[in-house]
């Protein structure tokens, strides 16, 4: 590190010396130049200067013109820009609710809103889509702060919801839910969204986690589609398939921390003493397993290389370059689209793996809908949310979304999520993925901890740090974080 700083200084040093050395000659040429200029200037003073003035006059005129035009333009814009009315009520007694979510309108929300608007002429809903990344969520938070542009909000991560709850942006749904028992109808998985012992949001979507398998390749290798399996077995499968494919197994690089969440599924990120649990034996086992798959067996892309070369595992899976791809229901939209993403094999589904003797991870419930505190129409907003969670959700099924509420049309949705490509799937295996038992909810650590884990894992899988160092560093960071936020 010091060497690098030294390098920078050295660079500047040399640069400066170069300038210094030549400065005398510079001066020489420069004075010559100035002299030349003065002479030229005075010689042409009579003719040349007037010439400038003349040109200047013309320029002056055009400046005036542009000045006028820009003033005109500004006043025009002033009237045009004059604020935007985002208020709720129109004169004719129709209530307009502004609904923000991260799903692109054409992937379902527009249809949901259209259906609602048709049946509820008095309460019209307008959908705005935000991009669910850091910047997009920052925009949402800013808008929430002004308090008048959003009535209903869909959050896509418990971390974001927590920030919003802590800032008093959202209403406690206990005051509105009435008959609708959130935990009762969504099940224990809903607890992922529970804050301050109550719910500020209703999760609406069950997002199944699974591993996609190239069924044709499995059959060729005489492998069964597993109904439950451990990480050891995943590695075995990957090695078997590794001979047929460049990679037997691949994941999206930004889900690398999943194995740690999985390892701590029963014991949690924090132990009973309030200390980090990241040195749990399961974490160790999982990381060693991934490391071997990347470096020893070469059946999984090395993490840093995957990031640096912009590897697209979903595309590689479809192209037959990856045997198994860890994903979830959200990828079904792409797989259903056989025109844009043609493939020549069938896909089977295996549940997310688990560690020996530990629970399986429950499917995520996501897309949590909230009422914004500043809204003038909380009752109407709740009505919409309840309807959305139970009936409206069906329009989002083609993107892999199954209603989380047990009153919702889950069966119907499960048929729709594969529509158009039913014949290319092993549907029995998909159904059994949805029916898994002995599950436990996955905990999401705060972003600070999550990002640190990702960085440490990158270093580990690069071979820069060994396993002990990696775990020690993760634990230290986590404990510091816990200490700071106690």
């Amino acid at each position: 590190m010091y060497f690098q700083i030294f390098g920078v200084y050295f660079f500047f040093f040399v640069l400066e010396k170069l300038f210094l050395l030549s400065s005398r000659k510079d001066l020489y040429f420069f004075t010559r130049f100035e002299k030349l200029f003065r002479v030229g200037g005075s010689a042409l003073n009579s003719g040349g200067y007037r010439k400038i003035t003349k040109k200047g006059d013309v320029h002056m005129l055009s400046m005036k013109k542009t000045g006028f035009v820009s003033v005109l333009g500004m006043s025009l814009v002033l009237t045009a820009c004059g604020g935007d009315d985002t208020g709720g009520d129109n004169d004719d007694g129709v209530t307009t609710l502004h609904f923000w979510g991260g799903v692109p309108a054409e992937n379902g929300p527009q249809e949901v809103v259209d259906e609602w608007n048709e049946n509820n002429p008095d309460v019209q809903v307008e959908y705005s889509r935000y991009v669910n990344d850091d910047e997009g969520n920052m925009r949402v938070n800013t808008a929430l702060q002004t308090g008048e542009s959003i009535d209903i909000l869909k959050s896509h991560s418990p971390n974001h919801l927590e920030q919003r709850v802590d800032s008093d942006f959202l209403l406690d749904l206990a005051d509105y839910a009435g008959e609708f028992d959130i935990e009762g109808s969504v099940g224990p998985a809903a607890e992922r969204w529970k804050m301050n012992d109550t719910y500020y949001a209703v999760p609406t979507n069950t997002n199944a986690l699974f591993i996609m398998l190239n069924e044709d390749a499995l059959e060729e290798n005489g492998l069964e589609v597993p109904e439950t399996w451990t990480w050891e077995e995943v590695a075995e499968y990957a090695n078997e398939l590794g001979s047929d494919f460049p990679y037997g197994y691949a994941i999206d690089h930004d889900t690398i921390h999943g194995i740690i969440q999985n390892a701590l599924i029963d014991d949690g990120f924090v132990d009973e003493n309030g200390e980090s649990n990241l040195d749990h034996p399961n974490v160790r086992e999982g990381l060693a397993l991934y490391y071997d798959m990347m470096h020893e067996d070469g059946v999984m892309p090395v993490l840093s290389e995957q990031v640096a070369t912009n590897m697209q595992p979903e595309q590689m899976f479809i192209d037959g370059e990856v045997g198994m791809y860890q994903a979830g229901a959200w990828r079904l939209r792409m797989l259903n689209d056989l025109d844009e993403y043609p493939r020549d094999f069938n896909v089977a589904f295996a549940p997310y793996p688990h560690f020996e003797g530990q629970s399986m991870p429950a499917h995520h419930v996501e897309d949590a809908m909230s009422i914004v505190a500043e809204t003038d129409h909380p009752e109407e907003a709740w009505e919409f949310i309840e309807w959305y969670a139970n009936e409206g959700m069906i329009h989002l099924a083609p993107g892999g979304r199954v209603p989380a509420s047990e009153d919702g049309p889950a069966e119907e949705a499960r048929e729709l999520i594969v529509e158009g490509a039913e014949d290319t799937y092993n549907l029995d295996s998909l159904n059994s993925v949805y029916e898994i038992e002995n599950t436990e909810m996955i905990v999401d650590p705060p972003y600070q901890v999550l990002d640190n884990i990702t960085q440490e894992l990158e270093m580990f899988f690069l071979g820069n740090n060994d396993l002990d160092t990696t775990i020690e560093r993760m634990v230290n960071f986590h404990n510091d974080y816990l200490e700071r936020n106690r």
Partner: protein
Amino acid sequence: MSSQEKIKNKSPKKINYYKLIMTIVMTFTGLVMIIPFFWMLSTSFKSPAEIFEYPIQWIPSTFNLGPHERVWFGEFSFFTYYWNSIKIAVIGTAGATFIGAMAAYGFARIPFKGRNGLFVLYLMMMMVPPQVLFVPKFIMFDFAGIYNTHWALILPTIFTIIGVFYMRQFFLTIPHAISESAFIDGAGHFRIFFQIFLPLAKPAIATFAILDFSWNWNNYEDALVFLISEHLFTVPLGLDNFVMEFSVDYAGMMAAATASVLPIVLIFIIGQRYIIEGVASSAVKG
């Protein structure tokens, strides 16, 4: 016959030969420089599967016009985005150029008390990381009622610091002899500014205007945070429409990005005339 032409006539062959080689070298370098642009253009005609093929397909197997159609005739109103962007960029650039040139002249040519201190303060302000400005800016805009209007984007850009700095530096290269002789003739600062400096500094002003236009045109973060209503959106926000939930519609996005680069290129081609023409046509070189 100017002296330059004389030199040319003396040994026309030698110079042309050198020029030709340089042209070839520079063209080659230039082509390397714009490889990403080729990629952008070719991707905008590709089918999704083809985009990630390696080695790169520089010429798509079939020219798929779908992405461009999605941009212009899809469900997003790119014409509105375009109009908004033009409005913001034109007003912002015009204001910044004028106010910036004035301040630059003040800093470069009028000796007043505390000038250097003030200028260092300016430099300081230029160093402020924009990320920390968001929250205070937001609070101010909300208070002033210009949150979610185009003013939230236009006003901060009008008061450019980089423009003041740049034009000041350029004004400093204009020989004192010129303004002094005008001064002796009884011209005041305003006249010298309008009649001598503005025409003389045309290359700098045109350059700054082009750059400022491109910054305003590409301003993504301010637009993202300060604009909420879709009818106010600008072109960079329009690109976000091609970010799907779990993937990116690269073809559509690159089609939109291509469309978004064109106006700046147009402005550049128009403005370039002034950059080059500038001093060459005025009498300064005498």
